[in-house]
């Protein structure tokens, strides 16, 4: 793997990609073999979690490079320097109201003396290696026998978000573990009800533990907590023991065990959004309404919002090898076929002691979310649900084995089944990573316009160093999204983004000079500097937005050139592609009336 990452900056993907996959497949199969057939299965699952940190670690060893990671690291730096929570970064305004992960990383920094970035990596490493372990215990609580619970942990470790997304220093990475822990404790409490082995006192104390974990999850991430409510609600409706609809005849304690965690998590989430983070509603609603509208328009039930629609093209310009694309298309087909077989058998057989309806519904939700990724607005939201819904997929092997009685067949058939299972695991691994993560998030490489990971060059780092040295950390800079990520990560700059009251894209795209309301808003915020990347007018990347969705395809070159002639912009720094201007607002207000028409 190290070999692959050393080749990646200079070679074509087809030369290092097979090396990368050889290392990954070898590690997965070795861990699978040891975990399934030997002792210490949970340790092996934890080791797999630790190993799968490596690809992303090689991408961002010394600091954040991904957009989300940069935003959260800016929040962490602000918490550490300000000694207070609820800090702000323009890259992720909603992150202000969910300070759980930053408070944990800051505590590691303060109490151990590790650097902020090492503290962030340590936190994510600990959390990540526990994810497959937690899925193992969730399976055990259903109850699934040990060996097939191990398989569930392994399958979960090939989910599309596992290797590059859930290892980022981003709030869902931590919240995911908290949510899975809640689900585990909940399922174990229901399992104890099956054996009738708890007293009311123990039940109450378990509910207290779930309440504490629920609060931690809610304070950490909105969407993960929401999916957690859905997971628990589904569990409450279908998981055994069940007597009557919603277990009405199961007795008071069982009713308490079944419903209290759902209500607790839901109440915490609603209360937090209502009293602390009301902006969450407007933040999340476009992720639901816009894809829904786009999907309805696809089937002719709604009008298209934009001329081009919001549809994405799969693997356009990605350069991924053919076997990756094949696996990416094959992976959901395999899941769908497995669900179909298991579902039909389950309907036919209805085994009384199994709890497979819960994972079946989760798998169906995962499959239903796949078409949403075809819409531009829905892709991000759909991706973020997969780490949750894949819990259901991870339980499909156990369902197939027990519903079809494969564990009772001859040793030869078992060995053949194991070999086929290993091959399918590899297909899922390759396909899910390919489908879930763009190439520029997976490997380093040459400069690529419109990529937050590949647009940072030595020239960018020199710019960041100059900004940090001459303007200071915390300086407010108006710039495009990709320069903003670099300056936030490497110069500690504050980089306001396009918003309803701050239409900064006008400066780049509009034929006319920026209007006074925009300049007044910038002056109020102390946005004193403008940084321009001249490549904004040279390159076009239809997959990436410089400022906002549905922006014009290209920045007119004259709009970049005119800045040198505006007297209210003072050039402070110039390199091959970057210009840093100081904004003189007083001069602008005097200049604007005579130049409002663009002369």
């Amino acid at each position, binding site marked *: 793997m190290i070999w692959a990452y050393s080749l990646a900056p200079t070679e074509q993907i087809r030369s290092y990609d097979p090396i990368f996959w050889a290392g990954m497949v070898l590690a997965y199969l070795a861990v699978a073999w040891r975990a399934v057939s030997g*002792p*210490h*299965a*949970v*340790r092996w699952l934890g080791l797999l979690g630790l190993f799968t940190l490596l690809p992303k670690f090689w991408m961002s060893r010394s600091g954040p490079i991904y957009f989300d990671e940069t935003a959260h690291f800016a929040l962490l730096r602000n*918490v550490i320097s300000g*000694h*207070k*929570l*609820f800090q702000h970064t323009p890259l992720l305004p909603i992150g202000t109201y969910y*300070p*759980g992960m930053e*408070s*944990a990383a*800051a*505590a*590691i920094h*303060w*109490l*151990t*003396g*590790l650097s902020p970035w090492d503290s962030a990596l*340590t*936190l994510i490493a*600990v*959390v990540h290696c*526990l994810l497959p*372990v*937690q899925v193992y*215990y969730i399976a*055990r*609580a259903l*109850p699934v*026998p*040990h060996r097939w619970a191990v398989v569930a942990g392994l399958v979960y470790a090939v989910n599309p978000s596992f290797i590059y997304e859930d290892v980022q220093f981003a709030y869902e990475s*931590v919240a995911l*573990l*908290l949510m899975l*822990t809640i689900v*585990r*404790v909940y399922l*174990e409490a229901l*399992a*104890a009800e099956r*054996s009738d*082995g*708890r*007293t009311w*006192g*123990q039940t109450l*104390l*378990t509910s*207290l*533990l779930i309440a*504490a*974990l629920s*609060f*931690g999850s809610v*304070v*950490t991430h909105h969407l993960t907590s929401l999916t957690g409510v859905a997971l628990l609600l589904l569990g409450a409706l279908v998981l055994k023991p069940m007597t009557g609809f919603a277990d009405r005849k199961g007795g008071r304690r069982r009713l308490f065990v079944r419903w209290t965690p759902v209500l607790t998590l839901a109440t915490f989430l609603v209360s937090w959004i209502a009293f602390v983070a009301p902006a969450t509603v407007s933040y999340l609603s476009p992720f639901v309404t816009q894809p829904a509208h786009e999907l309805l328009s696809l089937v002719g039930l709604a009008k298209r919002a934009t001329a081009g629609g919001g549809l994405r093209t799969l693997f356009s310009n990605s350069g991924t090898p053919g076997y990756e694309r094949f696996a990416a298309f094959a992976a959901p087909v395999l899941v769908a076929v497995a669900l179909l077989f298991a579902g039909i058998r389950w309907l036919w057989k209805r085994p009384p002691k199994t709890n497979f309806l819960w994972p079946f519904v989760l798998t169906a939700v995962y499959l239903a979310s796949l078409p949403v990724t075809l819409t531009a607005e829905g892709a991000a939201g759909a991706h973020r649900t997969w780490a949750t819904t894949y819990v259901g997929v991870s339980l499909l092997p156990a369902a197939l084995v027990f519903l079809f009685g494969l564990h009772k067949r001859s040793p030869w058939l078992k060995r053949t089944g194991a070999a086929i299972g290993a091959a399918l695991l590899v297909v899922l691994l390759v396909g899910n990573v390919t489908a879930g993560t763009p190439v520029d998030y997976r490997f380093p490489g040459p400069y690529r316009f419109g990529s937050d990971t590949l647009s940072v060059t030595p020239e960018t780092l020199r710019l960041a160093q100059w900004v940090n040295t001459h303007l200071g950390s915390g300086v407010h800079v108006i710039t495009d999204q990709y320069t903003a990520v670099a300056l936030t990560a490497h110069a500690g700059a504050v980089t306001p983004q396009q918003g309803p009251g701050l239409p900064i894209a006008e400066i780049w795209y509009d034929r006319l000079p920026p209007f006074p309301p925009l300049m007044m808003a910038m002056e109020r915020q102390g946005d004193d500097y403008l940084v321009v990347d001249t490549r904004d007018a040279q390159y076009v990347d239809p997959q990436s937005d410089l400022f906002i969705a549905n922006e014009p395809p290209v920045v007119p070159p004259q709009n970049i050139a005119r800045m040198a002639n505006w007297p209210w912009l003072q050039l402070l720094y110039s390199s091959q592609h970057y210009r840093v201007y100081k904004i003189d607002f007083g001069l602008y207000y005097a200049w604007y009336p005579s130049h409002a028409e663009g002369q």
Partner: protein
Amino acid sequence: MRSARDPGLLAAGAVLLTFAPVLPGPSRLVVLPALLLAPGYALLRLLGQAADRRSIAIAVPASLVLVILASLVLDVTGVPLGPRSLGLMLGVATAVFLAGSYASRVVAALPGRRRETSRRPEAARPGADVGERT
């Protein structure tokens, strides 16, 4: 990992958390396992949950949640967050949870309550397979 759930070491974890700011240089790294394990295991003991090896995947998230709660409490009450305030709060919380767990055991061992407490939480956990060594 057995040592991590030992009450004596949990108490040592509480002391480490409290005095973390005065530890010199790289030696402060020893606070990391205390931070990730001690508050969570102490809470599990207080709540009568099984504090065995299998519980590490609950103890670590519980520790993180307690760190988050401690930070929020300090922040809301206007105390600046930092190694001293956070270390003291987490150390004291761990010690209180440990003391609480002992107190609850003493109360549970009183005559007349033995019958109820004999149903240990471990008995209610979904049983490990024979031969399972995790």
